[in-house]
């Protein structure tokens, strides 16, 4: 029966204090809201990426292809299909062809990142196209997806020009060296003739050499150079193929090994003849290199071939292949939806009937992709991947045995959809972890408000509770009453908060889409998951009830005798036992780190011991000194742990950060509240405030005297301020510096086509010299290749930890880039005296590499992990390439790996180009970039002013931080609301005291100012420690994580000033109404109020 009585008491108490009930429910709601929003936003991120996987891959679950998308004979795809069907007749297998292209509409709009995709005209199991406009069938002609149609403003019936480089297989050279001397007689390949012929003879003279070319060989290159620099007679070279066709050079040599005669011919199997000719016989020794280029698909072959080339010295530069680009104009038969079959790879795409694309690319009967569809729909198919993969791998092994060709051996099976979904799950859980770590500060702030409210309730009802205890109510029953009252506040607060979290998550995801992802990328779709909302609600309820019940236990320990007379409790018990217990528990927790490795124990354990030692001084030095001695060293220790404990795992980070944050904040607030001399200082200042002195003295005295209430409120503020300041300070480390990003260049342009020399390309392909080149001082063309798939690069045995899409891009270092780029290095190998030497070492040794800053972070996000000499491994699907990292760049604009230019060409035959441009003095890089894009539309050139981009990136980052700050700032609402409530409560509690002040002649505005000032001081007592600890913790984290990488640290004083101003203005706004109400109460009534 007592239960019913307790329930009635709880209900009536809640009813009696409506404002307080609303405040408590609001605190519960805000805490639950941020928790719910964090979980939902993380889930949206995960769901969004998952959805992208389903949209992009459609029915395709697994793929078979090689790194570099090498072509294989169609018979290999057929063999694979047969082998799969033998094992798993329920699987659908179908080939395809993909190739990068530049698409340009008849209106002149260009899309440099388009993809041509060839599907068989008819196939089963992969669904069909969904027509948006016009045809939906490949037999009708070419289809484009909505993504491309939007960018090029295309409709069915339009013309579309495609510009592409024909796909090449990677080749290795076989080099044969011949020597001769055109003295008038033939010579063997073994060396100069002996004896030499007379110096001059009349009439032309020639020497011939023969060599054999195999079926597999692709090209034949002849390089002719003088054997002696003194000779200067023109020599000519001709290569004759087995069918009699002859290819000749026309200019002859100039007598220098750097400018040899050069002939490049398509290979034919059989015996070839090379003929070296001169106008007249003379002593004119020469060297002839015949280089046969042969396709190769393994790194080992590529390496061996390059070693052979290395012997050629400077001549090897001439082997860089000049690939002519092709044009083709097609008619668009229809526009199809960009999902499923029409969305493959997520790129803007043009879809061909496969044979037509094969013909276009000069790859008849060859494909470079095989797709596998598991039974079930787009989503269900994923579940079968684990089961299917062994069969697919076995089928591919059979295929490799059946079709013994190098390109087939390079194929591998990828669980494509599963890989994207796993990445989605990882990304989603990282985002959730990040948000919940941040929001935990707000949740703790909400908990503190609930505790504070109940503590105030306890003080208010001290007499009532003492009477209940005196009448025989047990402590646990009193605790239960308080718990029931908490439950009454939680009942509306939790569901409202959980649902409000839905709205907040929607806003958060929308803001990330609008501000961070931008309109060019796929937005994160918002997904409502009621299960998650339920989890958030349950967690919110549990956290609230634990907080309320713990406060209830404390309140139920009221001293009945003093409580009945509403007097202070007698002198508190000797804390000796509690001090000892805390010290022992702290020591044990610290020691428990040794077997467990949990840094959290090493943070909390010693902090408890330090606190206990200070606490133990209470009897000798009084409470203030003891509290200060207990708390200040804990702050110092906590900050030191940020600096010292750098190996905390990502999982532990998600809870050590809030735990340490709460510890630091509470210790800092206690230290400030008990700082020696602080009350004296406050009062000294207040007494000098003229007629405001009495009101000021009261305002400044309450917060330092009422420590529990002030501490709880200030801690709320401090927690929110801490996390806001920490992140805004910490984020300054990531500020983008335009000059550092530019590296001495002004414009960066990209094309998916290979371009060795922009000017030469213009000469060859454009009718007239583009005007933009007149504004360009110099350009550096770096071969560039992006590895599809990501997660294939490891440094020092671990994958680089960076957030965002895969950015495994290779840039080829050219001589000019090595000589002139201004990209600073951090963590440079000690063997080099300068950055320049390190860049030049890439030219000298092709196993060297330099990485950009995005690779320079470890699992904990710490920069500067790369030390010169560490090994970088690139996984190329069953094979790997190893490089020695010479250093990490400080720039992050060109995110990738810088290696020798030929390495990029070898590994990625279908590479594109990054062009770094210096503009003429006085030219506007932005305008030059626009002009370059216009002039080189055929290349699909995408040009940017590098500094402008850096500024934009900075702004984008700033917007993201703003979104986060707003999210975190929600906690401030709790702090401010709390101050309003505390002020109202204080006014109520001190009604008589305020009345006396008024009776004594203190004007009502002074009384109002006193109450508002009290709230402001309480806020400042939270803001100052929060700010100090936030900046200090950010600096400690900077020292621990980024200082080594050469990053710079600065405190964002403007942001801090704005934040503090907002907090203080909000505090004033929230406290003025209750303060004014209290100050303007009828004095006569107020002086007679008795609690």
């Amino acid at each position: 029966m007592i239960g019913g009585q307790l329930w009635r008491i709880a209900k009536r108490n809640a009813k009696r204090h409506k404002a307080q009930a609303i405040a408590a429910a609001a605190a519960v709601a805000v805490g639950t809201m941020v928790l719910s929003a964090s979980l939902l936003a993380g889930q949206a991120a995960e769901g969004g990426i998952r959805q992208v996987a389903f949209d992009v891959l459609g029915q395709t679950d697994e793929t078979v292809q090689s790194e570099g998308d090498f072509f294989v004979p169609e018979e290999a795809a057929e063999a694979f299909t047969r082998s799969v069907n033998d094992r798993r007749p329920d699987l659908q297998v179908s080939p395809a062809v993909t190739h990068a292209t530049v698409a340009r509409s008849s209106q002149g709009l260009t899309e440099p990142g388009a993809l041509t995709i060839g599907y068989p005209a008819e196939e089963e199991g992969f669904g069909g196209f969904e027509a948006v406009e016009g045809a939906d069938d490949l037999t009708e002609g070419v289809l484009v997806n909505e993504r491309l149609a939007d960018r090029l403003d295309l409709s069915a019936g339009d013309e579309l020009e495609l510009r592409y480089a024909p796909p090449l297989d990677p080749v290795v050279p076989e080099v044969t060296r011949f020597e001769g001397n055109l003295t008038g007689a033939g010579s063997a390949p073994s060396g100069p003739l002996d004896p030499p012929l007379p110096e001059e003879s009349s009439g032309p003279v020639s020497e011939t050499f023969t060599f054999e070319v195999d079926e597999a060989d692709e090209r034949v290159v002849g390089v002719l150079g003088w054997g002696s620099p003194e000779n200067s007679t023109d020599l000519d070279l001709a290569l004759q193929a087995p069918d009699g066709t002859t290819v000749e050079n026309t200019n002859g040599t100039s007598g220098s090994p750097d400018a040899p005669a050069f002939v490049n011919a398509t290979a034919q199997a059989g015996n070839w003849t090379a003929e070296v000719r001169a106008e007249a016989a003379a002593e004119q020794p020469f060297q002839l290199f015949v280089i046969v280029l042969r396709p190769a698909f393994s790194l080992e072959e590529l390496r061996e071939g390059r070693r052979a080339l290395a012997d050629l010295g400077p001549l090897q530069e001439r082997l860089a292949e000049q690939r002519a680009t092709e044009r083709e104009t097609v008619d668009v038969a229809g526009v199809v939806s960009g999902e499923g079959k029409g969305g493959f790879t997520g790129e803007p795409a043009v879809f061909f009937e496969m044979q037509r694309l094969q013909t276009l690319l000069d790859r008849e009967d060859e494909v470079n992709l095989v797709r596998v569809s598991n039974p079930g729909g787009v989503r269900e198919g994923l579940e079968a991947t684990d089961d299917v993969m062994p069969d697919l791998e076995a089928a591919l092994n059979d295929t490799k045995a059946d079709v013994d060709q190098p390109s087939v051996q390079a194929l591998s099976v990828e669980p494509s959809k599963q890989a994207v979904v796993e990445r989605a799950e990882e990304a989603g859980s990282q985002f959730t972890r990040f948000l919940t770590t941040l929001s935990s500060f707000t949740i703790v702030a909400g908990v503190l408000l609930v505790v504070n409210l109940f503590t105030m309730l306890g003080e208010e009802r001290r007499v009532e509770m003492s009477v209940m205890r005196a009448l025989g109510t047990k402590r646990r029953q009193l605790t239960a009453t308080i718990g029931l009252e908490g439950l009454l506040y939680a009942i509306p607060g939790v569901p409202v908060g959980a649902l409000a979290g839905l709205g907040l998550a929607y806003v958060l995801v929308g803001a990330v889409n609008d501000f961070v992802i931008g309109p060019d990328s796929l937005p994160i779709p918002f997904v409502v998951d009621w299960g998650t909302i339920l989890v958030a609600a349950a967690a919110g309820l549990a956290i609230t009830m634990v907080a309320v019940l713990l406060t209830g236990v404390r309140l139920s320990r009221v001293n009945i005798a003093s409580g009945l007379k509403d007097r202070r409790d007698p002198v508190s018990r000797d804390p000796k036992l509690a001090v000892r217990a805390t010290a022992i528990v702290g020591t044990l927790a610290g020691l428990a780190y040794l077997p467990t490795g949990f840094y959290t124990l090493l943070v909390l354990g010693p902090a408890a011991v330090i606190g206990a030692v200070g606490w133990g001084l209470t009897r000798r030095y009084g409470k203030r000194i003891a509290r200060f001695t207990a708390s200040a060293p804990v702050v110092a220790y906590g900050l030191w742990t940020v600096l010292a404990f750098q190996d905390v795992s990502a999982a532990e980070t998600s809870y050590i950060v809030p735990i340490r944050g709460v510890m630091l904040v509470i210790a800092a607030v206690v230290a400030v509240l008990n700082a020696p001399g602080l009350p004296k200082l406050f009062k000294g200042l207040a007494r000098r405030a003229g007629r405001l002195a009495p009101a000021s003295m009261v305002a400044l005295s309450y917060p330092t005297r009422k420590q529990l209430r002030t501490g709880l409120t200030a801690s709320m503020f401090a927690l929110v301020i801490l996390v806001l300041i920490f992140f805004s300070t910490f984020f300054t480390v990531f500020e983008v510096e335009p000059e550092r990003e530019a590296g001495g260049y002004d414009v960066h342009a990209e094309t998916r086509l290979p371009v060795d020399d922009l000017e030469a390309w213009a000469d060859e392909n454009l009718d007239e010299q583009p005007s933009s080149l007149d504004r360009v001082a110099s350009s550096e063309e770096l071969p560039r290749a992006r590895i599809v798939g990501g997660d294939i690069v490891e440094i020092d045995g671990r994958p680089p930890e960076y957030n965002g899409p895969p950015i495994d891009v290779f840039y080829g270092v050219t001589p000019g880039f090595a000589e002139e780029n201004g990209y600073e290095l951090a963590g440079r190998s000690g063997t080099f005296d300068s950055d320049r030497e390190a860049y030049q070492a890439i030219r000298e040794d092709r196993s060297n590499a330099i990485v950009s800053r995005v690779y320079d972070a470890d699992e904990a996000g710490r920069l500067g992990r790369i030390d010169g000499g560490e090994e970088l491994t690139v996984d190329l699907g069953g094979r790997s390439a190893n490089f020695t990292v010479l250093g990490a760049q400080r720039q992050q604009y060109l995110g990738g790996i810088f290696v020798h230019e030929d390495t990029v060409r070898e590994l990625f035959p279908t590479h594109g180009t990054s062009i770094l441009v210096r503009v003429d003095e006085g030219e506007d890089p932005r305008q030059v970039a626009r002009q370059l894009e216009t002039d080189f539309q055929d290349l699909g050139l995408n040009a940017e002013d590098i500094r402008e981009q850096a500024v934009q990136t900075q702004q984008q980052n700033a917007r993201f931080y703003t979104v986060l700050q707003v999210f975190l700032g929600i906690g401030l609402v709790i702090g401010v609301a709390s101050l309003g409530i505390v002020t109202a409560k204080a006014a109520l509690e001190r009604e008589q005291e305020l009345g006396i002040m008024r009776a004594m002649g203190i004007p009502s505005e002074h009384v109002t100012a006193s109450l508002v000032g009290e709230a402001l001081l309480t806020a400042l007592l939270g803001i100052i420690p929060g700010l100090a600890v936030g900046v200090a913790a950010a600096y400690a984290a900077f020292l621990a994580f980024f200082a080594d990488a050469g990053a710079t640290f600065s405190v964002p004083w403007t942001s801090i000033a704005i934040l503090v101003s907002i907090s203080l203005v909000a505090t004033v706004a929230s406290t003025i109404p209750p303060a004014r109400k209290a100050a303007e109460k009828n004095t006569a009534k107020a002086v007679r109020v008795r609690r």
Partner: protein
Amino acid sequence: MTAPLVSARGLERTYSTEAGEVHALRGVDVDIDAGQVVAILGPSGCGKTTLLNCLSGIDVPTAGRVRFDDRQLDELADDARTDIRSQRMGFVFQAFNLVQVLTAVENVEMPLLLDGHEPDPTRETAQAALDRVGLGDRTEHLPNQLSGGEQQRVALARSLVNEPEIVWADEPTGDLDRDTGLRVLDLMAELNEELGQTYVIVTHDDKVLDYADRVLHMESGKLVREEATPG
């Protein structure tokens, strides 16, 4: 003939409550001369405190006039009345009513600071006032570290520190035991004698009769009787 320090005519004070109107004062006429100790006696709820509040300017009568020296209190705005209270009056209340977070000396110096006095001499004056009430050794104690009598003595020190012309005391012994209460009344009498201040003491404690020059008896919002006492 000297004009009274405080003069009231036809004072009425009516409160509206949920239960209806309450007539706390029903046409009170009273004059208080400077230097007198006046006790207002009566049972609980008779309107003693209401009368004190109206006479001191804490409250405004519903009808009637109140004059303090040459100022018509009932016509003054709140700010002006507040100024008069801070500059010319002192107050002692039943529940001591010290600001709990200020020390004894800080509580005492409040009226002086309110008057715009310099802080350093203010502290000395407050110290002297505490010495005067016998608490010179407890200046840095917080109210909750003092006994009830000590707290009331601090309140008394506060009421006289700015040398007011009149001290209003509302049940100053109400929360004190008999002996302590007597000591407080002794002190008030001493101060009246030494400084010539006027004391108006609202009480239902008969022992005040021994200290008062005049005793005004109230019942149901009216002054029903006045008697002179030997005090």
